[in-house]
C-alpha cells in the first residue's frame, strides 16, 4: 500500500524513462559529433582559402596580369561560396558554442589577412620567408577552431 508519505519502490516507469533519456542523450552526442566534424571541416576550408587568397593577392596581383588576377579572385569567390553552400546543405547541427568559436576564429583570420595586405602594399615585399609563415598564421585561427576537440 502506498500513501503520500511512503516512498515508492523504484518505479519501472521511472527506470524506463531514465533509459529513454539516456538513449536520447547518446543520440545527441552522436549528432554533436557529426556536427563537429562538418563544422570543423568547414572552418579549416575557409581558413585555408583565405590564406591561399592572401598569397595569390601578394604574388599575382602585383604582376599586373589582369586575367590571372581575375581568375584567382573568381576561383576564390566560387570556392568560398561552394564551401558555404555545401556546409549549409549538409550540416547536421551545431555543437554548443560553435558559432561564437567560429566567429572569433574568422575575425582573427580576417584581421591577419587585412594586416598582411596592408604590409605587402606598403613594403612591396614578396619574400616567401615572410609570406608563407604569414599565410599559415592567417589560416591558423580557423584551423584551430576546426580541430578543437568536442566539449564534454
Amino acid at each position, binding site marked *: 500500500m502506498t500513501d*503520500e*508519505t511512503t*516512498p*515508492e*519502490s*523504484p*518505479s519501472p*516507469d*521511472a*527506470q*524506463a*524513462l*531514465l533509459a*529513454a*533519456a*539516456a*538513449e*536520447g*542523450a547518446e*543520440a*545527441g*552526442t*552522436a*549528432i*554533436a559529433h*557529426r*556536427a563537429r566534424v562538418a563544422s570543423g571541416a568547414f572552418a579549416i576550408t575557409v581558413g585555408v582559402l583565405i590564406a591561399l587568397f592572401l598569397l595569390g593577392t601578394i604574388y599575382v596581383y602585383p604582376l599586373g596580369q589582369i586575367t590571372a588576377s581575375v581568375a584567382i579572385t573568381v576561383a576564390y569567390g566560387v570556392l568560398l561560396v561552394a564551401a558555404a553552400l555545401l556546409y*549549409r*546543405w549538409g*550540416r*547536421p*547541427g*551545431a*555543437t*554548443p*558554442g*560553435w*558559432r561564437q568559436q567560429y566567429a572569433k576564429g574568422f575575425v582573427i583570420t580576417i584581421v591577419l589577412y587585412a594586416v598582411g595586405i596592408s604590409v605587402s602594399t606598403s613594403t612591396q615585399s614578396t619574400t616567401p620567408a615572410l609570406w608563407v609563415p604569414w599565410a599559415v598564421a592567417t589560416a591558423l585561427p580557423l584551423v584551430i577552431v576546426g580541430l578543437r576537440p568536442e566539449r564534454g
Partner: protein
Amino acid sequence: MTDWAAEPRHPRHEVDEILTAPVRLSLIAALARVEDAEFGVVRESLEVSDSVLSKQAAALEAVGYVELRKGYVGKRPRTWLSITPVGRAALARHLAALTAIVDGI
C-alpha cells in the same frame, strides 16, 4: 497524527507530465547535447518516423521547451530543432525527480 505539511514532497510531484512520453524525453535529451539539429538527422538518430517526430516536437514547442526553426536550403525545406532554456531547466528537474524515484528517496 501525521503533519502532512512538514513531510517532504515525494519526487513524483516533480515529474513533468510533458516529459513522461519516452520519445519526447529522448528528443529533448538529445537536443540538450547540441545547439541545434536538423530534423532529418534527429529522426534518423532517434529511429522514429517523420510523423512521430513532428508530433512530439510540436508538443514540446507548444510548452516552450523546444524551438522549431523552418527555412530553406536551396529549394528544399529544412527544420532545425533546439532546446530552450526553459526546456533545459525542465529536463534537469524531470531527470532529478526520476533519479530520486528510482533511488527510492
